[in-house]
């Protein structure tokens, strides 16, 4: 319900500012934890995201149980021991593309942009900054970025027995396939 109110508010805000809103319910977030002992990969294909082309306001949210792992045991460990997905079912990002003005959404092109914002996982919110690539092609907008996330920053406690199998810093790939609203 809160999400619907938020989206509705963003829509109204964008109309008021004569802005263009780009939206997706099928964004992808995937991560890859690589160590010498084990590669752990997971993908979530139902990420909801909104990008305001006028202000650069950017948000996304996802369900932790929506991560698809290569096998059941990895998924169970992730949901039960690390993400505690029953207790913290969602993760979110709220921020701004700081140089959105350099993106021309009316014609095809590839743009490197910077963003800053707050990433919330397990109710722990941390400031994050990074670069993203926005591709405008045939009226569609795709934004991609690679975030570096340290599990311990978000109270994700990895026991010593599993420590060697899980990287200290995990690369989180964000791929948003926006369409105009």
């Amino acid at each position, binding site marked *: *319900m809160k*999400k*619907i109110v938020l*989206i*509705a508010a963003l829509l109204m805000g964008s109309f008021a500012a004569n802005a263009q809103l780009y939206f997706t*319910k*099928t964004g992808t977030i995937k991560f890859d934890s690589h160590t010498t002992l084990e590669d752990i990969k997971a993908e979530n*294909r*139902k990420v*909801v995201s909104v990008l305001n082309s006028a202000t650069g306001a950017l948000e996304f*949210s*996802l*369900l932790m*149980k*929506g991560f*698809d792992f290569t*096998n*059941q*045991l*990895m*998924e169970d460990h992730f*949901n039960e021991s690390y993400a505690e*997905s*029953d207790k913290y*079912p*969602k993760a979110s990002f709220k921020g701004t593309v700081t140089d959105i003005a350099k993106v021309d959404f009316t014609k095809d092109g590839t743009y490197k942009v910077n963003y800053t914002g707050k990433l919330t996982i397990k109710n722990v919110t941390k400031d994050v900054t990074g670069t993203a690539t926005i591709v405008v092609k045939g009226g569609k907008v795709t934004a991609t970025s690679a975030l570096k996330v340290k599990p311990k920053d978000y109270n994700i406690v990895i026991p010593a027995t599993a420590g060697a199998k899980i990287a200290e810093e995990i690369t989180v790939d964000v791929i948003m396939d926006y369409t105009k609203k």
Partner: protein
Amino acid sequence: MKKIIIWLLAIGLISGIAVYFFVFYYGAKHEDPLKSTQMVSVDAKDLFNQYELNEDSANKLYLGKVIKVSGDISDIQFENNRYTVNYATDGVMGTVLCEMDTLENPKVKSLIVGSKVVIAGFCNGINMDVYLDRCKLAE
């Protein structure tokens, strides 16, 4: 002779652990929702309404559990070799989505928008839409 036996036992033990790890850890297949013994049945409209009314309460009932959802199909999407079936609900901006197991593709292909369907899958919660994954046709 004693040393050989100890070495053989050690090799056998290590091999056993390795086989167990690769078969039961790496080879652990995803659970089949249709084999769940604790499946909860719910109408798609009721499911969405419950989530809209109180997400926390609905999560306590459904999150992570296998639920068997019945209702009318409002849309079927196919992307990256995977079908997603949308249910007709009273939601303004959201609905109930079932991401189907790719093994179901031949059956889902023949589904018709507007027809009734019963699907079982794992409930992931609500993020605008109530989302189920690894879904299979239940009837």
